[in-house]
């Protein structure tokens, strides 16, 4: 019935949840791509529960008989292995993003494990730190909000921050706290810092936009919003707006719309035989995507092309943003 190869494959995006703008935009990108090829589109959410995420993928594989292309942001790095193995067994094609174990490689699961896409957290975490330091005039104290501790991007972004600190001796890291990607926790932590360090806080670095925006709200309640620069990462709409208002010093846009759509496009093209993954070079199998650093200078332009209207992407240009093979150390 469905397992028939002549059928159009089902397109599947699996993400953490639909309750944050980042993944909601990811989902929109997936839907846009699916529409462009006229395929059925399914969204799965893990709700932060690895077992659920994996079980859902297996359910889809069973339901479609493996006739699907999957683009997934695994809940936690370990989830990638069982998912890839299940896809291989069912004959589905899968692209992973952000999280996977370092020793799990697409080329070990030809052709089904098409590619892994990530964004090196280190340079962008560092870029944000530098943008922050710049708007502080190169000296002063900062505090930093981290993501979930075991999460790879959170670890990388923090590493980037640390590199930037090493290169900028004028900047002192007053404290680093983990706020688990949560607005509320970020707000509470910032509140406590305002007591502890008061005016010594010259800037706030946050590992994502949600936490950065929450820090701004804590500053606002203290009457200091706009006076203490804050940076985030992700490039969500509210962050770009905050940059335009001068309350935020910078963010990095991964373009989740691209992630959600292009990840599917790559898996879909492999599934439908447009290219043979086994024949692609490693820098198309495990590659860094390109992030856009947004600061006060380009915020308006970015807003106009990416946020005001739905971005139009060329889904044929699957390798357009591949910027080098992922390095593990």
């Amino acid at each position: 019935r469905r397992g028939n190869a002549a059928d159009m494959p089902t397109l599947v995006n699996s993400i953490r949840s639909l309750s944050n703008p980042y993944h909601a935009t990811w989902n929109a990108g997936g839907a846009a791509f699916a529409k462009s090829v006229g395929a059925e589109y399914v969204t799965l959410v893990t709700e932060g529960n690895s077992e659920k995420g994996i079980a859902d993928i297996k359910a889809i594989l069973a339901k479609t008989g493996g006739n699907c292309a999957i683009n997934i942001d695994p809940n936690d790095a370990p989830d990638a292995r069982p998912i890839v193995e299940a896809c291989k067994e069912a004959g589905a094609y899968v692209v992973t993003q952000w999280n996977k174990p370092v020793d799990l490689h697409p080329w070990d699961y030809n052709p089904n494990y098409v590619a892994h896409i990530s964004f090196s957290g280190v340079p962008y975490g560092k870029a944000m730190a530098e943008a922050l330091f710049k708007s502080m005039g190169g000296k002063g104290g900062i505090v930093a909000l981290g993501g979930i501790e075991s999460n790879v991007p959170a670890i990388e972004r923090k590493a980037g921050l640390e590199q930037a600190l090493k290169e900028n001796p004028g900047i002192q890291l007053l404290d680093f706290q983990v706020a688990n990607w949560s607005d509320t926790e970020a707000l509470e932590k910032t509140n406590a810092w305002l007591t502890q360090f008061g005016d010594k806080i010259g800037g706030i670095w946050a590992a994502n936009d949600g936490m950065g925006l929450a820090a701004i709200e804590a500053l606002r309640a203290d009457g200091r919003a706009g006076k203490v620069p804050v940076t985030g990462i992700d490039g969500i709409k509210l962050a770009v707006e905050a940059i335009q208002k001068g309350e935020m010093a910078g963010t990095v846009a991964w373009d989740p719309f691209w992630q959600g759509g292009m990840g599917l496009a790559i898996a879909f093209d492999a599934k439908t035989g447009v290219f043979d993954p086994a024949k692609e070079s490693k820098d198309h199998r495990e590659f860094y995507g390109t992030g856009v650093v947004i600061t006060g200078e380009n915020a308006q332009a970015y807003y106009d092309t990416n946020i005001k209207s739905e971005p139009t992407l060329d889904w044929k240009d699957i390798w357009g943003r591949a910027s080098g093979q992922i390095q593990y150390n």
Partner: protein
Amino acid sequence: MPMNSSLKRLNIDRLRHWLPLATLIILVTVVGVMEPVFLQPSTLLQLASDTAVLFILATGVTFVIMLGGIDLSLQSMASFSSVIVALTIAQLGYVSFGLAVGTGILAGFLSGIAHVKLKIPSFIATLAMGGVLFSAALVASKERSITLGDAERSYQTWVTGSHFGIPNVIIVGLIVLIVAHVLQAHTRFGRYSAAIGAGEPAAYASGVKVDRQKIFAYMLSAGFAALAGVILAGRLSSGSPTLAAEMLLPSIAAVVVGGTAITGGVGSIWRTLVGSLIISVVRIGMTFLSVNIFAQNIVFGSVLVLAVAVTIDRSKIPIVK
């Protein structure tokens, strides 16, 4: 005449007994009719293996719930256990599993002591213990997930492999079911638990060593949670301080959906098994039936409430609180 009515009563009791299972079968049938692939043996086996970890977690907490307590530390315990396995399996091999479960039992003992001797409500004692375990997992893992290599994974085939086409994890689940069922239905501990849950003062006055039974229940709960963590570590071939994240509420929900009273005294491991399967079927069923992703939480919540409305045995629960 009295004979007759007591027969009737027995029948009603029997009927009540089967309501959770009937609910499960109805749910499976509904999904199966709308999407026949769901009823294929391979899909059902898959469903069963994907339920194993949830079931084991739920089984552990059933012991505590029977006593009228609660264990909120189980997801941190499971995650910590996966970290222990990941850190030690290279050196210790199979012993690492024992180490992890042993740590679980010890943690359960400590929560039990805190609850019983310091008289801290179990809600607080286990929530706090969960925090301690989470911190321990973060520190031990250096805040990262630890992936296991091929050599280490070879110790885990008892989780990942299969026998006669049946995934091992299902077999492990069945063993847990049998052990837990025997403990709960055929041992003094099980009987005392029910007595404590249904009427602690009378159990105490009858000479039951209440504290000891309670501590034992917390040890079982954390021990099973640790076992669940060991299995998760096998399934995901890694350990991580967040590996079992978001599994706490589904586990407790599984116990309650099976019809065990959250207030204690009434319940069984069978009910927990059925409850775990109901949770799985509803979740996976929604994926099979392509329920709109935005509607899924709404449907899930509603079905759970309705399921409990059907499954609980109100004749044995004095007051529904």
